[in-house]
C-alpha cells in the first residue's frame, strides 16, 4: 500500500524522508530568526527590519573573529551573539527608544534605514561576493535514507534547545511574567518598581543576539555576504505573520513547520518553493487574520 503511494507520488520513501529532514533543518533557521523577531515585537511593538542585517553581522562576526583574532567557530558561537547583542542594545538606547511614544510604524522605518546603512557599510568594506568560512564539523553519517552532515544535525539540535529555553524563560519564569505584564500594561508594572525601559533594552539586545546566533550557525553552510540577510528576512516576516505576530510558541512551531512544507515543495514542485510560504500566508490571513497562534488585538 505504502509502496503504491510512493510510486504514485513519483519519489522513493528514502528521498522523501531525506527531504523532510532537510526541511526541518531549514525550519531551524526560520524558527531562530522568527523567534528573535517575535520577542522584539511582543515586547517593543517594533518590527525589526534590521533583523536580516543583524543576522548577516552574526555571520561576518564569526568570520572576523576567526580572521583577525584566530578565535574558532565554537568561541564565536558564544562571543558573537553577545557582541552583536550589545550593539543592538546601543542602537536601542541611542535611536529606537526615542520613537516609542510615536506610531509603531516609525520603528519599522528607522530599522529599515539602519538595515540599509549596515548592509552598505559591509559591502563597502568586504565586497559582495562573499567570504569563506570552513565547516567546523566536517563529515556526517549515513542514515540509510540520506547522508546527514554532522553540522546540520548540530544546527537542529542547538536551535531546538535555544527556542525551547526562550519559550520557557518567557512563559514560565518570573522574569518572563514581568516581561509579559510590561507588554500588557507598562505603567502598572512601572508602579511596582520595575525598570521597564531597561527591560525593553535587554529584550531588544536578546532578540538581536538570537539573530546573530543564527548568523554564526549559517556561516559554515551559507555564503557569507552582505546581502545574505535581506533575502531571508522577507521570508521570515511571512513566517512571523503566519505564526501570529508576537506569539513565541507560534513562531517556533511555524518556523519548523514551514521549513518542512517548503522542503516538500522542493520535491514535488520545486518552482514554487519560494512562493509557497507566501501562498500559505495569504490563505492563513483569509481564514485567521491574526495568524495561527496570534490573538486578535
Amino acid at each position: 500500500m505504502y509502496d503504491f503511494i510512493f510510486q504514485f507520488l513519483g519519489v522513493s520513501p528514502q528521498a522523501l524522508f531525506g527531504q523532510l529532514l532537510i526541511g526541518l533543518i531549514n525550519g531551524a533557521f526560520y524558527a531562530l530568526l522568527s523567534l528573535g523577531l517575535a520577542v522584539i515585537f511582543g515586547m517593543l511593538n517594533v518590527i525589526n527590519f534590521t533583523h536580516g542585517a543583524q543576522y548577516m553581522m552574526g555571520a561576518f562576526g564569526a568570520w572576523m573573529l576567526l580572521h583577525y583574532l584566530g578565535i574558532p567557530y565554537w568561541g564565536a558561537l558564544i562571543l558573537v551573539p553577545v557582541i552583536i547583542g550589545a550593539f543592538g542594545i546601543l542602537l536601542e538606547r541611542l535611536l529606537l527608544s526615542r520613537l516609542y511614544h510615536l506610531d509603531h510604524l516609525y520603528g519599522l522605518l528607522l530599522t529599515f534605514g539602519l538595515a540599509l546603512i549596515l548592509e552598505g557599510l559591509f559591502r563597502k568594506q568586504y565586497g559582495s561576493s562573499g567570504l569563506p568560512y570552513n565547516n567546523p564539523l566536517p563529515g556526517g553519517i549515513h542514515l540509510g535514507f540520506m547522508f546527514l552532515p554532522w553540522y546540520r544535525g548540530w544546527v537542529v539540535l542547538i536551535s531546538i534547545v535555544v527556542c525551547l529555553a526562550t519559550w520557557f524563560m518567557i512563559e514560565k519564569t518570573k522574569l518572563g511574567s514581568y516581561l509579559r505584564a510590561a507588554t500588557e500594561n507598562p505603567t502598572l508594572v512601572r508602579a511596582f518598581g520595575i525598570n521597564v525601559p531597561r527591560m525593553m533594552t535587554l529584550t531588544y539586545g536578546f532578540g538581536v543576539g538570537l539573530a546573530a546566533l543564527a548568523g554564526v550557525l549559517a556561516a559554515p553552510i551559507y555564503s557569507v555576504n552582505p546581502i545574505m540577510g535581506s533575502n531571508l528576512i522577507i521570508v521570515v516576516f511571512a513566517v512571523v505573520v503566519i505564526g501570529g505576530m508576537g506569539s513565541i510558541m507560534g513562531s517556533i512551531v511555524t518556523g519548523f513547520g514551514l521549513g518542512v512544507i517548503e522542503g516538500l515543495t522542493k520535491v514535488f514542485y520545486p518552482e514554487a518553493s519560494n512562493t509557497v510560504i507566501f501562498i500559505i500566508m495569504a490563505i492563513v490571513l483569509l481564514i485567521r487574520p491574526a495568524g495561527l497562534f496570534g490573538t486578535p488585538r
Partner: protein
Amino acid sequence: MKNYDMPIFAVLIALLILAPMAIYPVFLMKVLCFALFALAFNLLIGYVGLLSFGHAMFFGFSAYISAYTVKVWGWPTEIGIIAGTAVAALLGLVAGSLAIRRQGIYFAMVTLALAQMVFFFCLQAPFTGGEDGIQAVPRRPLLGFIDITSDLNFYYVVLAIFAAGFLIIYRAIHSPFGQVLKAIRENEARAISLGYHVDQYKLLAFVLSATLTGLAGSTKAIVFQLASLTDVAWQMSGEAVLMTLVGGMGTVFGPIVGAAIIITMQNYLAGFGEWVLVIQGVIFVITVLLFRRGVVGEIAALATRLTRRSEP
C-alpha cells in the same frame, strides 16, 4: 486659513514646463514618474494611515503589462498605458481586499508578502523575460500623431499625465470621501460607530492608490523603453516610502519634493558608487529621528509659526 495649494501647483507646473531648458528631460521624466508613484503611495499613508510596503507590485507589474502590450502585441502607446493602469487597479482590488483586514504593522507585512508573490510570479512567468526584462519597447506616436521619440515631446506628455494624476489625488483628498478617510485615520472606531462602511472606504482608497501607481509604472516603462525586475522588487517599495517620508507624509506636495530629492541623489551621487546605499539609509534614519514631518511638512510648520507671530 487660506489655501495656497492651487497657486503653488500652478507655479510648479509653470516651472516644470520651463525646466527642460535647463535640465535633461529624461531625468525630469524619471522624477515625474516617481513623484506620481510617491503621491499615490502618500494617499494611503498620509490620508488613511496605512503603510504599504508592497507598492512595487503595482508599479512594476503595470510596467510589464504596458511594455508587453506595446512591444509584443503592438498596441498603441496610450492603450498600453491604460492597460497597465487597469491591471494595476485589478491587482489592487485583490491585494487590497486581503490587506485591509489588518492595520498598522500587520498591514505593512501583509502588503510586503503579497508583493513578494507578485515578484516571484514576474521572475518566473515567461512573458516578463526573466532577468533581462522586456527591452527595446518602441515609442509609437501617441494617439497616432504625437511623435514621442523625441524626449522633449514625450516630456510634456508625461507632465500632462503627472498633472492629471496629481489633480485626481487632490480632488479625492478634498472631497467628502477624503474627509471620511481622514476620520478613519484619526479614529477608526468612531468612524464605524458613525455608520461608515470603513472597509469599503479603505478598499476604495487602496484601489485608487494602486491604480495611480500603475499609471506611473506604465508611463515609466514607455519612458525608459523597458520593464524589469527592479521595479517589482521590495526595495522599490522601500524607495516609495523613503521619498514620501523625506518629502513629508500627508502633505500635498511632499511626495513630489521627496521624489525629486531622492532621484537627484541617486543620479548625481552615482559617482560615490558604494556609498549610495549608506547615504540613503542615513537620510532615512535622520528623517525618522529629527524631521518626521519631512521637508515640506517642516516648511509648512515654519510658515505657520511665522504667520502666527506676525498676527498677534
